[in-house]
């Protein structure tokens, strides 16, 4: 406790507060640009932290991390483009809301949800880090395989319309994930003889292409911007207080999303990309009005954004206690810790407890700071997006996407892949294969493959190797969850399909 107070005191300096403020703002800016991920934001910041004190450096990194994960929501809502992969699910309802002229409501909802999520994550980290850390190492190869399978059951709810088409999208995504060097075997696959293809198809490249380019193409074809139609700021209808009241009035949604965020954050390798999707799916499943999801239900935005901000502090649990990075950006934080001679482990919480607790508390401070910075930023960005004529908007967004894609790996080939996938994505959307299942397959393909092949390798001495997949208690539980999840997800789709026997029924709601 003393340590906590001491840490708090060390944070209450003008310098620290400014660091957090600048960090959150910079993170927000980087995170809101498609292609510039939280990992990149941290990598850019890294050299600057060398000249700082260890605590100051970590505070800056934590603030940037928090800001950039949140920043992804901005573009997700305003131009249907997840700024970071962790806000994919935010687009599902956030963008329809923006098209209905409710952008501000969505942004405010995302902000409040992010603040709550951030604070919840910090609380978990402060109070429950050691016990939760044990949970992290329980996930071995076979468990990871089932986690990926569990994720794939989301295809059913993500494929608006035909389930089969969703499945095809998911398979295509998984196959795209296998391009390049195989995770086990280290051989090149599907490169068609181009050395540059050894790098494979980066998730974020596909994500940007599949989400942004179709939107730009349809704006160009229609000759107008997709969101200026209502023109209004949207503030007139719903104020920040009402949004807050609405969110807090449905505590179950936010509590569930935060818990999901925390549980998944601890599983190494799943990371924030999956948390928001799972939280969104569960919010939809348990909602009284699941049909309204995907058409502008603020609960969907809240579920996605709260869970991915829990992940920021949540994924620090395995990192700080065991040195296991739970999400890609954590690898950089691990590097910084090592550089300052700090070894992950329980010592971090005792011997250098002031530093560690200071770092954790500063993330809480960053989460709080999201509120003013975020609401102000939301207003500004929203105004810019609304006021800009569409003939500037389209080329400007295109330029930013090109820059973001290029910056990811300094690769011009990635820019080409992004564009080609985007153009293909536009036409695939027309025939009913949507971007979300493809991206989901791309995220989970690698996890599933690695888990499966590693399990099979380890089982080489067993008489029936695949039994190894359900050998541990945890993998049994997960396998059961997969079956259950698939059943409950398929059932409504099945019923809907059989109810749709009379053809020509008006089932074309959201084609965006």
């Amino acid at each position, binding site marked *: 406790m003393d340590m906590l107070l001491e840490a708090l005191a060390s944070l209450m300096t003008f310098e620290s507060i400014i660091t957090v403020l600048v960090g959150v703002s910079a993170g927000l800016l980087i995170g809101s640009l498609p292609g510039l991920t939280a990992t990149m934001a941290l990598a850019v910041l890294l*050299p600057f932290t060398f000249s700082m004190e260890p605590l100051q450096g970590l505070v800056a990194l934590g603030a940037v991390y928090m800001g950039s994960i949140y920043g992804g929501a901005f573009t997700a809502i305003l131009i249907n483009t997840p700024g970071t992969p962790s806000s994919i699910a935010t687009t599902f309802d956030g963008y329809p809301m923006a098209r209905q002229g409710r952008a501000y409501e969505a942004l405010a909802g995302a902000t409040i949800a992010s603040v709550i999520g951030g604070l919840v994550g910090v609380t978990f980290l402060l109070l429950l880090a050691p016990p939760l850390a044990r949970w992290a190492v329980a996930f071995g190869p076979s468990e990871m395989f089932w986690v990926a399978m569990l994720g794939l059951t989301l295809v059913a709810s993500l494929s608006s319309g035909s389930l089969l088409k969703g499945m095809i999208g998911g398979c295509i995504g998984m196959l795209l994930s296998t391009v390049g060097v195989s995770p086990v075997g280290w051989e090149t696959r599907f490169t068609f003889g181009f050395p540059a293809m050894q790098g494979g198809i980066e998730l974020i490249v596909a994500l940007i292409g599949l989400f942004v380019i179709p939107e730009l193409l349809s704006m160009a074809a229609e000759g107008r911007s997709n969101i200026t139609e209502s023109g209004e700021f949207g503030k007139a209808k719903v104020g920040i207080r009402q949004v807050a009241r609405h969110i807090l009035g449905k505590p179950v949604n936010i509590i569930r999303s935060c818990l999901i965020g925390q549980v998944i954050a601890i599983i190494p390798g799943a990371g924030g990309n999956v948390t928001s999707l799972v939280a969104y799916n569960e919010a939809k499943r348990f909602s009284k009005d699941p049909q309204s999801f995907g058409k502008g239900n603020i609960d969907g935005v809240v579920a996605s954004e709260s869970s991915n901000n829990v992940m920021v502090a949540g994924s620090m649990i395995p990192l700080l206690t065991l040195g296991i990075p739970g999400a890609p950006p954590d690898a950089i934080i691990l590097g910084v810790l090592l550089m300052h001679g700090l070894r992950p482990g329980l010592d971090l919480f005792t011997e250098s407890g002031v530093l560690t607790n200071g770092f954790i508390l500063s993330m809480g401070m960053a989460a709080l700071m999201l509120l003013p910075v975020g609401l102000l930023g939301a207003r500004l960005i929203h105004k810019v997006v609304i006021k800009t004529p569409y003939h500037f908007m389209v080329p400007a967004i295109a330029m930013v996407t090109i820059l973001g894609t290029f910056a990811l790996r300094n690769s011009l080939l990635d820019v080409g892949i992004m564009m080609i996938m985007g153009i293909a994505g536009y036409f695939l959307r027309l025939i009913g294969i949507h971007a979300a299942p493809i991206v989901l397959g791309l995220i989970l393909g690698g996890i599933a493959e690695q888990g499966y092949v*590693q399990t099979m390798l380890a089982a080489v001495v067993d008489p029936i190797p695949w039994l190894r997949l359900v050998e541990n208690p945890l993998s049994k539980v997960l396998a059961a969850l997969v079956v259950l999840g698939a059943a409950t997800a398929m059932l409504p789709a099945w019923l809907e399909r059989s109810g749709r026997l009379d053809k020509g029924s008006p089932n074309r709601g959201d084609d965006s």
Partner: protein
Amino acid sequence: MNFSKSTLVGAVSAIALAGIAGNVQADYPEEAISYVIPFNPGGESDITARFQEPVLEEILGVSVNVSHRPGGGGAVAWSEFQNNAEPTGYELIGVNIPHIIGQPIQRSDAGFETDNWEIITFFHSTPNALIVPANSPFDTLEDLVEYARENPQAVTLGGSGTYSANHLDMLRLEREADIDLTYIPFSGTGPLPAALEGNHVAGIFNYTMLGVQMEDRVKVLAVASEERVPALPDAPTFKEQGYDIVGGAYRGVAAPAGTPDEIITVLEDAFAEANRRITEKQEPLGFVMEYITGDEVDEIITQLREAYAPILESTE
């Protein structure tokens, strides 16, 4: 076929020398130097480059820009570098052994060759280490070898990547001890602590760094270096225990083929000096500082290629 390009290299360097002679060497360096890391930020290569960056800038008097070009285990950046980089001394790239040896042997489309560049120096190495969890039944290397002899393939060892330094030295252990183990590749060093703590594998073959990082939760059975590593004074080497296994990853930096010798010398000195200044920070992490330059570079590549090639080719 990959290693007989020396005539071509020679010709290229002659042309390059003729083209830029006279105006570069005297005042090198004059502009910013780009230093490409072919891996993701946060890894060992990146951490080292970040340490070096400010020191190099101070010594050379120009800015050094570290950027990342990950993909294909380094191959994407290396093939691009060998094809496009100008031999002016302003474009450098990080190189790793055994990656640059293994990939061209193993892949038909790696896109680069092991020696189609001027390797300036290898500045450090991370020896392999055989690490088991603290609660493992194996207390010594001998325990593990004996158990494996009685139970072929039952001992699972994790490591980073396939045909990586980890994997290759595990294969050497199999040959030396005449045992049959099962290697399970993970993507990078990141997931290995979890695999170890969660007992998903019996042990791991990874670098000494991880042994240092997890010191109080694991047992380091053997280290693949000539002498004991300063950061792990209690861990015996393979050699002490009768197995001739010395290997690991070497990290260095290369300039394009045909870069003038004067420039290479300037960079050699700069990296050596940088190495001396960051030793204090790197050694405790488990790195072994090296000063391998000039002919020694070729020697070590030839030596390791001879050690690894039969293993790599026999698995084709």
